[in-house]
């Protein structure tokens, strides 16, 4: 264990780990032992386990509620049964959750990190000794003609919109993409009264069958899949089928589908697209954590290659909520380097990682998808840059300098993973601010006369609760 200055490690279990001198130096800063970035299952488990050990934990999340995408509550509905025990534990743990907050910058200093965030339009600084990244994942989109039309949305994006109160009753919907996420979304849309025209999985029938067969060790997943399928039995679930174009003027009205042999049109009001998930590694790369194959590299205790920065969940490799929970538990136990996680947790993680890797193989996007975009197809939706404009570039950096691809508000989060698939680009470097923020947040400074505020003993914490 590296020795840290200011007697950092001298504190015993349950004692404040934050050096009180820091609070004087940064009077306006919310101080904590641990900041958890992201309140999905991984972040919730990490925050809960760390706080239950007596650490002072702050959790920031951009959403309106804790739970991330997978545990997003349906408007007017209850908490998901699998989420309830964790949300109850989190609430009792002493960890402080700050919603509607996203991280803009992370600056390491001598013995911790200063994090600048935008919190409901206002600057928020958190000083923390350790960081647990639980930044989750986003959907992988591969551009095709018409994918920019309104009504063409992510598969998970559609689920989010549905849960946040959108009505799909009577709407014709085509779901075309890949991966296990398609089943629950199809089921929810069917329940909501949507007319599911077609659910098209790009992976081959052989791959899907092989994957299903590999689930014999975890029959609960097969049962779950069958239950989802039962909710949209009247609709077609096709394998080896993908979307090649979306058509319409102001909104999508039909899509072109293919199974590699023939191409046909399906009229629709909504197209849900997405080829699996991409880990959100921007903050990790800003801090300097090593990444491999688009995911944050972690060791057996969820530690990244940067001291006192841990990472859990989808950001360390796509694996689903049960794996995120286990990784969160491990990080919550190991953060602060107090004790290693139990062998039982490590075994559970190994099993879940193995099944996740098999899933990623089966649902990897097929080579044919590389020929979908034409020269005139828009790839960067923020800056309206076409595929033809970037195809000749040697790397992402060159393309950005010449065309502004990936330089709009989303900072390449939407187009770059697709372009990395299409053109074998490496991801470009990440710089602060990692996300567009208000000038008033970026230019905010700590006032000389600011009242010292320590989240766990002052009114600042209550105000954010």
């Amino acid at each position, binding site marked *: 264990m590296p020795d840290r200055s200011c007697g950092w490690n001298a504190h015993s279990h349950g004692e404040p780990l934050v050096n009180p001198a820091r609070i004087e130096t940064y009077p306006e800063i919310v101080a904590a032992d641990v900041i958890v970035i992201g309140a999905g299952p991984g972040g919730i488990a990490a925050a809960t386990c760390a706080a239950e050990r007596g650490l002072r934990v702050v959790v920031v999340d951009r959403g309106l509620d804790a739970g991330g995408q997978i545990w997003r509550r349906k*408007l007017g509905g209850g908490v998901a049964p699998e989420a309830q025990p964790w949300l109850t534990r989190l609430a009792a743990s002493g960890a402080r959750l700050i919603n509607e907050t996203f991280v803009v910058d992370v600056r390491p200093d001598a013995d911790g990190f200063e994090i600048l965030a935008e919190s409901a339009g206002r600057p928020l600084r958190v000083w923390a000794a350790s960081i647990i990244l639980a930044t989750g994942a986003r959907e992988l989109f591969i551009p095709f003609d018409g994918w920019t039309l309104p009504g063409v949305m*992510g598969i998970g*994006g559609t689920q989010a919109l549905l849960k946040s109160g*959108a009505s799909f009753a009577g709407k014709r919907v085509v779901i075309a993409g890949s991966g296990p996420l398609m089943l629950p979304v199809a089921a929810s849309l069917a329940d909501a009264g949507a007319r599911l025209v077609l659910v098209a999985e790009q992976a081959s029938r052989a791959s899907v069958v092989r994957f299903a067969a590999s689930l014999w060790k975890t029959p609960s997943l097969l049962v779950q899949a069958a239950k989802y399928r039962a909710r949209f039995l009247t609709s077609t679930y096709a394998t080896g089928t993908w979307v090649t174009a979306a058509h319409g003027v*102001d909104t999508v009205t039909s899509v072109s589908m293919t199974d590699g042999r023939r191409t046909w049109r399906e009229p629709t009001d909504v197209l849900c697209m997405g080829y699996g998930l991409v880990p959100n590694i921007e903050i990790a790369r800003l801090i300097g954590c090593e990444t491999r194959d688009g995911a944050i590299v972690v060791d057996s205790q969820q530690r990244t290659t940067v001291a006192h920065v841990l990472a859990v969940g989808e950001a360390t490799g796509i694996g689903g909520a049960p794996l995120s929970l286990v990784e969160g538990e491990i990080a919550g136990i190991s953060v602060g380097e107090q004790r290693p996680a139990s062998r039982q947790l490590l075994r559970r993680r190994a099993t879940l990682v193995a099944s996740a890797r098999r899933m990623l193989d089966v649902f990897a996007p097929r080579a044919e998808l590389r020929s979908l975009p034409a020269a005139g197809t828009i790839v960067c939706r923020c800056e309206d840059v076409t595929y033809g404009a970037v195809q000749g570039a040697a790397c992402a950096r060159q393309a950005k300098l010449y065309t502004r691809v990936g330089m709009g508000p989303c900072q390449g989060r939407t187009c770059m993973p697709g372009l990395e698939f299409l053109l074998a680009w490496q991801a470009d470097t990440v710089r602060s601010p990692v996300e567009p923020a208000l000038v008033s947040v970026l230019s905010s400074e700590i006032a000389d006369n600011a009242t010292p505020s320590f989240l766990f003993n002052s009114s600042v914490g209550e105000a954010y609760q």
Partner: protein
Amino acid sequence: MTSRIVQFPITVVVDGERVQVPNGITVAAVLFNLGITAVRQSVSGQPRGPVCGMGVCFECRVTIDSRPHQRACLTAVADGMHIRTASHS
């Protein structure tokens, strides 16, 4: 749908029209339910609507209470909120 919406407690103004909506609904969902799929215009003037649903893609940007570039998917409605979309003009 309208007959159900009238009973909702929150009133927002979308492109000058008063709409009653349930508590907790997001602005993106309100616009979808009103049939406004093209919520913004892209830099080259194309119609665009929500994609990611979680604040990543910035395609659902609208003007809320005179503040431009607000992500509709991350914003819950508030009573009296003014929302302006690209279909305004």
